[in-house]
């Protein structure tokens, strides 16, 4: 049976997990930034529309409620993306360990 170096496999598993996490973090960051900017811009559009008389009192209140609801959607998306990232990180680490075990025993055991 081949050598199974716990430290090497552990490092490789960590690196695989970190790489899997990074894929999601790199893509979630601009999304969060863009949505935060859009929410701020929409706040300005509501104020501007109200001043111009395009948006009435009732509509302004509804729009603010819609903004609050939309911001909760963004938070839910970020939380779900975090779960997907965690799932991929764990599976990447398991993949590395599986490969190392198979190599150590010399057959595709797992």
């Amino acid at each position, binding site marked *: 049976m081949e050598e199974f170096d716990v430290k090497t496999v552990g490092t490789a598993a960590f690196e695989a997990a970190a790489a899997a996490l990074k894929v999601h973090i790199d893509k979630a960051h601009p999304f969060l930034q863009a949505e935060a900017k859009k929410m701020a811009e*929409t706040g300005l559009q509501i104020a501007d529309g109200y001043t111009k008389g395009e948006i009435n009192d009732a509509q302004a209140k509804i729009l603010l409620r819609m903004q609050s609801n939309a911001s909760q959607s963004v938070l*839910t998306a970020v939380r779900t993306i975090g779960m997907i990232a965690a799932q991929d990180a764990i599976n990447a680490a*398991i993949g590395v360990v599986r490969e190392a075990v198979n190599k150590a025993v010399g057959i595709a055991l797992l």
Partner: protein
Amino acid sequence: MRPRNVACWHSARFAWRPLLAVFVPALIAGCAISLVAPYDEAIDKQLTELHLRTRVFLAKMSATRGAHGNNIAFYREAHASVAVLLSRAKLYGDKNKGTVDNLNRLDAAFTDLEEAHRAGPLVGPAYANTMDVHFESLLQIELHKKFSSGVAAPKT
């Protein structure tokens, strides 16, 4: 004499081998974990279509100052589309909670939009931008599911 901690490490390195053959397969075989529902192309496509219809409708309303009474059909169809999306999303159970929660918020957003329309014409970009946030949040989740399943993003 070998230091105690090295001896322990040395014996530990060999002690795991018999355990490896018995326990590791049980631990790892088939243990790729799944915390979130898989990517669903139908949800992705239907969301994009509903987003387009919403954007076109709001652009038309802003330009024409269309009255709510003449556009009730849009809201009925939008709620029906969200209901179909919810039915599909719920097939995956608790693992699709994020998508289901955001689809419920999208449905509430259409209700709010209709209430705003009853209060007056939908003029200006604020309505479309607010609806965009809902669609983008839902599509972002699908996009990450797609990356997760190893499917390449479509080339545009």
